[in-house]
């Protein structure tokens, strides 16, 4: 038994030598091809490997099936590649080499249309390309109403703070000339726009984000939103520092409710 195993190991290594030797022998040749020796070496490796596996199975030692499986799979893939007839070195005819060179001078990113002419680099690239196309990812949805990242009360809070700041600025402007009048009008416009923005932000979160089950965690949600929207309208119409402070506090309370609903 031991002698048989030793002989098989020798043959196995011989096969490997043929493959590795063939690789180094052909390393300088421009159209990269498998020599017949490499193909035979691979076959020899598969055969002797399977026989070695048989011997190992007959023995008493536990057999590492994963190791054998991976080795056999690699060998089978090598054999499949080498069984592609155009890859294996054929007797060269006159003129062949010139055609190879003319196709493969620019190895960078060219695509070989005619695989019978160009054997360099193209095959592995083509295999990878096919695999990539075959395993192109399919979109799966982790669904929620529109992209969910947009549900954030921070927008409403920022808008409310802008309203408060604008109210503050409006109180400081003394209209004496065109420049100060221009600034006043701009501040008023910004205040009204941001008060409207508060309403919009809060309404979107209220109608789109909040679901019936959230009401258990935020029981006063509807009343809170209703009062907040009215407060925002009041800020839009008037210049009232107290109301502006209230609006900021109300949006912050709304942000707390939003956080509470997620807890």
């Amino acid at each position, binding site marked *: 038994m031991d002698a048989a195993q030793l002989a098989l190991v020798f043959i196995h290594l011989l096969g490997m030598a043929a493959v590795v030797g063939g690789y180094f022998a052909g390393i300088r040749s421009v159209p990269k091809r498998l020599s017949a020796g490499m193909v035979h070496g691979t076959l020899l490796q598969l055969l002797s490997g399977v026989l070695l596996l048989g011997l190992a199975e007959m023995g008493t030692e536990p057999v590492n099936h994963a190791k054998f499986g991976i080795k056999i799979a690699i060998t089978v893939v090598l054999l499949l590649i080498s069984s592609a007839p155009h890859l294996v070195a054929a007797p060269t005819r006159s003129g062949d080499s010139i055609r190879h060179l003319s196709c493969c001078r620019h190895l960078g990113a060219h695509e070989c249309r005619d695989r019978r002419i160009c054997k360099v680099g193209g095959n592995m690239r083509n295999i990878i390309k096919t695999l990539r196309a075959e*395993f192109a*990812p*399919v979109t*799966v*949805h982790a*669904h929620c109403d529109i992209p*969910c990242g947009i549900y954030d009360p921070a927008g409403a809070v920022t808008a409310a703070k802008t309203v408060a700041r604008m109210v503050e600025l409006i109180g400081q402007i003394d209209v004496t000339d065109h420049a100060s009048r221009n600034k006043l009008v701009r501040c008023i416009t910004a205040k009204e726009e941001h008060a409207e923005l508060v309403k919009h932000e809060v309404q979107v979160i209220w109608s789109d984000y909040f679901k019936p089950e959230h009401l258990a965690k935020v029981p006063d949600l509807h009343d809170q939103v209703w009062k907040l929207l009215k407060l925002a309208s009041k800020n839009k119409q008037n210049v009232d520092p107290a109301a502006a402070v209230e609006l900021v506090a109300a949006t912050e309370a709304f942000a707390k409710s939003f956080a509470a*609903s*997620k807890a």
Partner: protein
Amino acid sequence: MTARRIWRAVVAERSMAPTLEPGDTLLVAPAGPYGLPWLRGTPRIGSIVIAEREGRLDVKRVAAWPVDTLQTPDALWLLGDNTAASNDSRQGGPVPLSALRGILLFRTGPSGRRGRVR
């Protein structure tokens, strides 16, 4: 869209956050009617699956199985990890096994997030 082979998926939206984020690519084993005979293994509770609902593929986690429904004796109760922003069995009801399309094997990308998903 899906077949009897291992396929790849890319996640859109955030209902499985923080486990799965938009742009994550997943390697998926076929399951349900598309499952290979030796890979058909029904999902375990807690595993992440892909099911077809209303013509689109949803990725969700199995919260309970089997769930008895009027139509099918065994159905999956699927929930998103990001419960606040997930549309799942709480709204759509249980999902029959026949709608199952795949079981997540592992995450293939983006490069920093490769590996097993729990």
